[in-house]
């Protein structure tokens, strides 16, 4: 009994300090966003979207991201969603791969050869993600939620989020399941809670100031699995899309304001 009372006093004593720390995080985020070069990635992405390439020598301009061929305004905010032509729930990057292979006639091997770039040479997916996500600024996040396949994907994503596995017996919730936790200078948001998922999903994909790279959502999920010491998930697999849909659906209603800038 005495130990419990002591713990409560300690928690109370520490909470103002933590609140102060949180505002420091906010200051840091505000300052990095001020000098963000995200717009440069958007410009290069637009160029790439309009560039004719592949065996059919066509651009991606007729790619249907769910709002009709070539409609970009608000399209990202509605993803992931079910696509009848592919009979699959798809996120942005999966859909872009679909368009690269079906519209431009590129082989899946060629289109997936270089998915994650580096600071000196960002990847096609990174540029395109920046441009397309930027076209949803100011649009409320509303991924697909009515089709049975979308519901199925959401449930799979939710199950994966809490599923413990790997060498460390980690799940996403091991780090993203408790409030007021941080790792170095990053807060660890409770991603199963709308309150915390909203600001996160509203600002991904994002530019990282610490390594000058633009990061996509598929990269974010891939790297979380690496950090959990799990086998690498396959790019654009149903599992990664389900995870993306679960997180995005949890953030539903938030106004998209990315691409963001991260530490």
């Amino acid at each position, binding site marked *: 009994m005495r130990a419990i009372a002591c713990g409560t006093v300690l928690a109370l004593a520490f909470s103002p300090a933590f609140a102060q720390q949180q505002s420091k995080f906010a200051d840091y985020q505000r300052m990095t966003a001020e000098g*963000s*070069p995200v*717009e*440069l990635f958007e*410009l290069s992405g637009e160029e790439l979207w309009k560039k004719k390439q592949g065996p059919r020598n066509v651009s991606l301009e007729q790619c249907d991201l769910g709002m009709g061929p070539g409609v970009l305004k608000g399209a990202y905010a509605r993803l992931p969603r079910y696509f009848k032509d592919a009979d699959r729930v798809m996120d942005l990057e999966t859909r872009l791969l679909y368009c690269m292979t079906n519209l431009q006639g590129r082989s899946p091997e060629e289109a997936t050869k270089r998915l994650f770039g580096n*600071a*000196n040479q960002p990847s096609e997916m990174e540029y395109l993600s920046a441009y397309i996500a930027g076209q949803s600024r100011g649009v409320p996040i509303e991924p697909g939620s009515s089709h049975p396949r979308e519901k199925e994907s959401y449930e799979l994503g939710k199950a994966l989020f809490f599923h413990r596995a790997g060498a460390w017996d980690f799940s996403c919730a091991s780090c993203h399941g408790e409030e007021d936790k941080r790792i170095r200078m990053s807060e660890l948001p409770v991603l199963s809670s709308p309150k915390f998922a909203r600001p996160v999903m509203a600002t991904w994909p994002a530019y990282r100031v610490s390594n*000058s790279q633009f990061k996509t959502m598929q990269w974010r999920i891939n790297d979380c699995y690496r950090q959990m010491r799990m086998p690498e998930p396959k790019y654009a697999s149903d599992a990664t899309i389900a995870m993306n849909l679960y997180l995005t659906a949890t953030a539903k209603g938030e106004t998209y304001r990315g691409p963001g800038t991260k530490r």
Partner: protein
Amino acid sequence: MAGPMKMRATLGSGYTDVRVLMTHPMTTEQQSKGQPHFIQNLTVKVNGKTAIEGQISQAVSRNPVFSFRLKGGAKGDKIEVSWLDNKGETNKTETAVA
């Protein structure tokens, strides 16, 4: 081929705020083992007349952003920002004050 630049110039009361983004690797001596690659000169022109001649160094980060306030200005004034790096490459962008 130099990557894109992006600039915004907005009129305040009695001043003009300019914010310019530029794509550049800004590689330092140490990172590149003696092959640095960085912007050396930055020139800002207002209606064709040089307003700022700046010299910058390797200490500036990749994909730099610069913002500065110019005295006066009017809607439609042409602002041009150009850079020259240590390898002789250049790029420039132009915008009208809005």
